[in-house]
């Protein structure tokens, strides 16, 4: 019964979303306040109904109601509780319901907190948002119904793909979706603004928190996905340039560009139509990601089911929203008034270059991801565009960008003094140079480019720190005065410094893992040892153990450094009888500077086991950096200026002034 209520609620949500699409748009056109007023309550009702549907689905998984086909296909009564819950979105249908739930949540937030938006803009935003919900609710109801029953009900479920039976499943998809769907909000604002034919500072002010929220969710989602891949795939990599990963990276890069261009649109009234275009592209790429992952065009664990009908439906949604919004853009964007002229060397100019570089990086990733698919579609040769391609295209573009990052905050609006900025960055440049020399001195046997990468990382971190130091006049005024200045500095400034610094830390991690990985693969009998980067790894024993829904072969590996005991790791090979699959659990010891990563392989004859081990230098920094970036975004989000919705003239606001202009 509960399942049927859920199904009914989902269909009702579709009806509500249709009403929410049509009525407010019409109301805004006719200046009819009553019609426009439907938008808010409809958005809340839609959220309530989708929540009900989602709750019904979760309930069926919790009580292991295998008469629900979805639960039968993806759950098992012996599965731990957390996987029963996260299993709800560990499949195609359930994940689409989660998608729509987050979509409805964002819409409801605009309805709740957007009371000070102009009436027509608010009505149009909610209408566009609802139209996206209509498309996806139709998609679920017509092609991916999660509420199908089985009769007779099976006694036991078939279980969840073991690779998905991981705590990260509880966090990675929701955050990623919050990011993807978050860009639906900026998209709705962009389309509404195009229909209104007006983009002003208050519009940009309204878009920024959404762009920021989406960006930080996506940052967390991508970082968690990468960390998950790192510890679960058993070969210690953190990024594979897999199309599915690229699909999440592209909206992230464009979203980063949007974040920066929205600042220019808000503070200076320039780059307006460019900002609109980025908002449209960011969501288009989110949709493209959904299409690539959900259509079965690509096969991976992300693609739960291959069903051409679904692929064509999502392709239809993609074409409608991307084509429609771009056509609207082509028609309406020339009507927008441009404002705020600026010199090439200025904060605006720097942010524009940032945007161009990010766009170029996106284009490279886009090309590398879709070219093989296109070639295959026209029956060309089957090719693979692997990591080498991305390392040769994306990486150089990003390096240029990263070199320029610390300059941005030191440049004033309209016209800036690049020499002055360079002087203020002398300390950071010096630190980067010293770091490079140290890296050459200690890691002389690694690739020669690696110390340059470390220098780049230090440049970013020190550059971000320099900006804060100048802002609070560290060492040039008494310390107490600096502290007071630190407290008075806008949170957005702290957020930016953290995000840029976190980026530097992540870069260091990426360089370390890529350049200074030590690796060994040996066959060991219990009691035998091997050497890895100054550590002694001893396979002490191999045993069997039973987990809740798997049986495991566990190796006990003792790690020593000289005479000092470091850690005892237990890498496992797990077999899941219900799903008839195996899964590798790596044993990882970290000292926050590097990881020792051990995987237990197959039997290699005569009581020996294959043991593969890595020393991954600076590996934890990748995710620490990612989290610092996300925290920076969160701190920015709490900035007073972003919370206060009323339009304030940027020129009269203290926080808007850059340090260099003081």
């Amino acid at each position, binding site marked *: 019964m509960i399942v049927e209520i859920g199904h009914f609620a989902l269909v009702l949500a579709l009806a509500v979303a249709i009403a929410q699409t049509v009525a407010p748009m019409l109301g805004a056109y006719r200046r009819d306040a009553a019609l426009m007023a439907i938008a808010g309550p409809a958005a809340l009702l839609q959220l309530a109904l989708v929540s009900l549907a989602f709750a019904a689905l979760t309930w069926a998984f919790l009580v292991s109601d295998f008469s629900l086909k979805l639960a039968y296909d993806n759950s098992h009564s012996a599965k731990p509780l957390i996987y029963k819950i996260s299993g709800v979105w560990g499949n195609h249908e359930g994940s689409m319901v989660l998608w729509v739930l987050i979509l409805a949540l964002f819409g409801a937030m605009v309805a709740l907190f957007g009371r000070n938006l102009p009436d027509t803009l608010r009505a149009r935003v909610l209408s566009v948002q609802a139209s996206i919900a209509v498309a996806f609710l139709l998609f679920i109801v017509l092609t991916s119904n999660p509420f199908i029953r089985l009769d007779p009900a099976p006694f036991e479920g078939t279980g969840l*793909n073991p*690779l998905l039976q991981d705590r*990260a499943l509880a966090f990675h998809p929701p955050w990623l979706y919050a990011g993807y769907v978050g860009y639906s909000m900026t998209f709705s604002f962009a389309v509404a603004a195009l229909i209104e034919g007006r983009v002003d500072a208050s519009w940009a002010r309204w878009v920024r928190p959404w762009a920021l929220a989406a960006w930080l969710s996506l940052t967390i989602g991508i970082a968690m*996905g990468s960390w*998950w*891949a790192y510890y*679960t*795939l*058993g*070969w210690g*990599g953190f990024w*594979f340039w*897999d*199309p*599915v990963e690229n699909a999440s990276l592209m909206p992230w890069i464009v979203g980063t560009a949007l974040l920066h261009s929205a600042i220019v649109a808000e503070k200076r009234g320039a780059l307006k139509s460019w900002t609109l275009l980025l908002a449209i592209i960011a969501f288009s790429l989110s949709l493209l990601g959904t299409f690539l992952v959900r259509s*079965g065009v*690509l*096969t*991976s*664990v*992300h693609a739960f089911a*291959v069903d051409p009908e679904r692929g064509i439906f999502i392709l239809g949604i993609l074409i409608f929203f991307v084509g429609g919004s771009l056509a609207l853009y082509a028609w309406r964007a020339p009507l927008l008034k441009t404002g705020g002229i600026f*010199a*090439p060397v200025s904060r605006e100019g720097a942010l524009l*270059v940032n945007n*161009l570089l990010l766009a*170029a*990086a996106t*284009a*490279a990733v886009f*090309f590398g991801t879709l070219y*093989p698919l296109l070639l*295959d*579609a026209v029956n060309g*040769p*089957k*090719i*693979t565009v*692997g990591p*080498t*391609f991305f390392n*040769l*295209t994306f990486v*150089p573009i990003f390096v*240029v960008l990263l070199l320029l990052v610390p300059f941005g905050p030191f440049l004033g609006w309209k016209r800036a003094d690049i020499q002055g900025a360079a002087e203020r960055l002398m300390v950071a440049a010096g630190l980067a140079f010293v770091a490079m020399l140290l890296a050459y001195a200690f890691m002389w046997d690694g690739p020669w480019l690696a110390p340059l990468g470390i220098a780049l990382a230090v440049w970013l971190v020190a550059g971000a720190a320099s900006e804060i130091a100048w802002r609070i006049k560290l060492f040039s005024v008494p310390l107490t005065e600096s502290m007071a200045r630190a407290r008075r500095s806008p949170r957005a400034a702290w957020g930016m410094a953290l995000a840029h610094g976190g980026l530097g830390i992540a870069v260091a991690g990426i360089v370390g893992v890529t350049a200074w990985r030590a690796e060994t*693969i*040996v*066959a060991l009998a219990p009691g035998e040892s091997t050497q890895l980067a100054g550590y002694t790894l001893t396979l002490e024993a191999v045993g069997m153990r039973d987990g809740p829904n798997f049986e495991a072969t566990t190796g006990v590996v003792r790690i020593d450094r000289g005479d000092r005991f470091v850690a005892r790791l237990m890498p496992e090979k797990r077999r899941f009888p219900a799903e008839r*699959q195996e*899964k*590798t659990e790596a044993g990882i010891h970290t000292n926050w500077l590097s990881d020792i990563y051990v995987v237990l*392989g*197959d*039997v*290699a*004859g005569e009581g*020996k086991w*294959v*043991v*593969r081990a890595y020393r991954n230098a600076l590996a934890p920094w990748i995710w620490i950096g990612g989290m610092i970036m996300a925290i920076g975004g969160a701190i920015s989000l709490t900035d007073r200026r972003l919370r206060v919705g009323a339009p304030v003239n940027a020129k009269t606001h203290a926080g808007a002034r850059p340090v260099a202009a003081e």
Partner: protein
Amino acid sequence: MTRKQRRAAFIAVGLAILALAVGLVLYAMRDSIVFFYSPSDVVEREVAPGQRIRLGGLVETGSVETLADGAARFNVTDMVETITVSYRGILPDLFRENQGVIAEGMLLEDGTFAADTVLAKHDETYMPPEVVDALKRGGNWQGEGAEASHAETYGQGSYP
């Protein structure tokens, strides 16, 4: 700086970045694209040793052995031609005999294939589409497993 000069400066920067991106893509296209071959293709087209390729087919039953130093050796076949593959590493969880596999690496002078990456299918029913095509061309497709999709990639072992 006049308005015209300013605009020229922006266009110049934009074009420079565009040129950078296009140049990098064209450069990377030259030697970072990996072609897929079946064992028959390798023999027919006389793929040169040292060229990086993807080799796909079925893992020949009974051919898998783990050598004493931890390296693995197995035969990849499309029922017409067979190539011996050696791989230093732990085979993916889903690697099995008589099932589809893709090995990435290069041919050696002795005609064997040295793989640095081995990709296996994702689940019980999945067969890499390139392998399906290769088997079909070899006339050995028995229609088992899932229908071919346009899938191009899957991770090492399986992909999260």
